[in-house]
């Protein structure tokens, strides 16, 4: 009888302690994937018609126009 009482007490204590446990409250973040319409690369249409290299050359030339050290030939 005493043994049963001890076991019951241990079970109640274990149950009581388990209530003190805490589950993580922070949601696991998952990177979402784009759900919208697909976009085409900027060199797809006219005037480049898919010629990526030509488009990149045009962009690089254009970017260098922002360097006035080159514009004033220094």
């Amino acid at each position: 009888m005493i043994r049963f009482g001890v076991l019951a007490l241990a079970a109640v204590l274990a149950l009581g302690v388990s209530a003190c446990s805490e589950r993580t409250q922070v949601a696991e973040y998952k990177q979402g994937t784009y759900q919208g319409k697909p976009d085409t690369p900027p060199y797809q249409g006219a005037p480049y018609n898919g010629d990526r290299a030509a488009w990149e050359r045009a962009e690089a030339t254009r970017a260098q126009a922002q360097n006035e050290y080159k514009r004033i030939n220094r």
Partner: protein
Amino acid sequence: MARMKFLCDAERCIECNGCVTACKQEHDVPWGVNRRRVVTLNDGKPGQRAISVACMHCSDAPCMAVCPVNCFYHTEEGVVLHDKDLCIGCGYCFYACPFGAPQFPQAGAFGVRGKMDKCTFCAGGPEPDGSAAEFAKYGRNRLSEGKLPACAEMCSTKALLGGDGEVISDIYRQRVTMRAARGTRSGPPWGWDTAYGQGGKS
């Protein structure tokens, strides 16, 4: 090609707001929306500087991380764009953005927010390039015409640089070297670490 980036040289910006005007004019941006703004730092104090701020098209964009409808995407050139057909105008991206880039037009009475609008690096959006639908929603697609963002290209002092990250960082590096030769110090470009990682390397 590396990736498209903006760089604002605070030593050169004269706060003329030409970039703001160019952007509004180029994209027919509605009243109350400013895709680009000029911000004064240390106003009225010694060392006052001005910087031109818009979406920096971050490498690890916080707006993309918080969007509940996943309407953001990175183009292969590193430009952060979004699909307005999907945007619900919740404003999470505005709170997440370190540059205050997302803008919300008033869509109706009682201050109802419309769909988010932001700088597109003049790359349009997910509509056919150069179409009327693309212009109406996102503005002109200058990148598909082989041009660079209007704000950077028309900047009179060339304080604002836009384009391939490697090219514009080379231009800035050259400036810093020239200034150092004259005994003037320049700090790292404003916002680069925040947008493109430590040292602007990503």
